[in-house]
């Protein structure tokens, strides 16, 4: 049986930690942490190195990448400089992050379920043809204008419909004028 481990607030580890079970970090670690269970970085905890675990919860400071097979959660007070990768990534209000976030894994079903659920309720006498409704409904919902980042994220989702380009906001047209010139032009128009 693997029991939980604790790195206390007065403890500094220079090296790598690896193992099964859960780990609470209230002290300092300079090295990589690899666990199968949960890793919790407490308020006083500071890690310089990457952490990969089933579930990573951070209340303290981490300088390094975080990856979770289940989830990565940054709680209020967390300071993270590094990339986050997990099927579920949570960043609480008051947590600081500098790095890229990638949600990948098997947690995706949560969204399709939400879309599919209302369909049978709305049309209880649905014929087999209606079963495809969720797939049709999805791109319609997607057609709402999205910021470029959201569009890039959605790129992995089902194929886009040909109609979609019509509803997209027009591509930004940036006049090739200098900063000063642009300001002046506006002023001229106002007058």
């Amino acid at each position, binding site marked *: 049986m693997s*029991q939980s*481990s*604790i790195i206390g*607030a007065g*403890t500094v*580890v*220079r090296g790598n930690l*690896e*193992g099964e079970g859960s780990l609470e970090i209230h002290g300092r670690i300079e090295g990589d942490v690899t666990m199968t269970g949960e890793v919790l970085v407490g308020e006083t905890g500071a890690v310089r190195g990457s952490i990969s675990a089933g579930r990573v919860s951070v209340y303290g400071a981490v300088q390094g990448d975080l990856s979770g097979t289940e989830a990565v959660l940054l709680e209020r007070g967390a300071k993270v400089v590094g990339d986050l990768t997990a099927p579920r990534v949570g960043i609480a209000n008051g947590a600081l992050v500098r790095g890229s976030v990638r949600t990948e894994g098997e947690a995706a079903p949560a969204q399709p379920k939400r879309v599919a659920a209302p369909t049978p309720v709305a049309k209880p006498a649905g014929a087999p043809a209606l079963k495809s409704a969720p797939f049709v409904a999805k791109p319609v919902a997607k057609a709402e204008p999205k910021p470029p980042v959201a569009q890039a994220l959605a790129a992995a989702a089902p194929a886009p419909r040909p109609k979609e380009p019509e509803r997209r906001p027009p591509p930004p047209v940036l006049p090739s004028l200098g900063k000063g010139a642009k300001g002046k032009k506006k002023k001229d128009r106002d007058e």
Partner: protein
Amino acid sequence: MAGTVIGEGLSVEGDITSDEEVVVQGNLRGKLTSSDAVSIGSGGVVQADVAGQSVSSAGQVTGDVSAPERVDIQAGGRLVGDVRAARFTIADGASFKGAVDMEV
């Protein structure tokens, strides 16, 4: 509650420095220094020099052990390395190989 617990199933490769109690039930390779008590559980495997205010071991230790207060090897414990301490006990059933310096 012990300050730091290296639980069963956890392997640490590197140095541990602490000013609180350290309990090792897992594996440690490197160095362990604490200004408080250090105890190594029966499942603990330590390949490191260990220094603490006092050191008590029921596990397997390979490395030098030093403590200003005392070093105890409990029954079932195994220590290969030199011991430097004011007091040193080896329980019945413990094994030890090394030199002892009790600062006489």
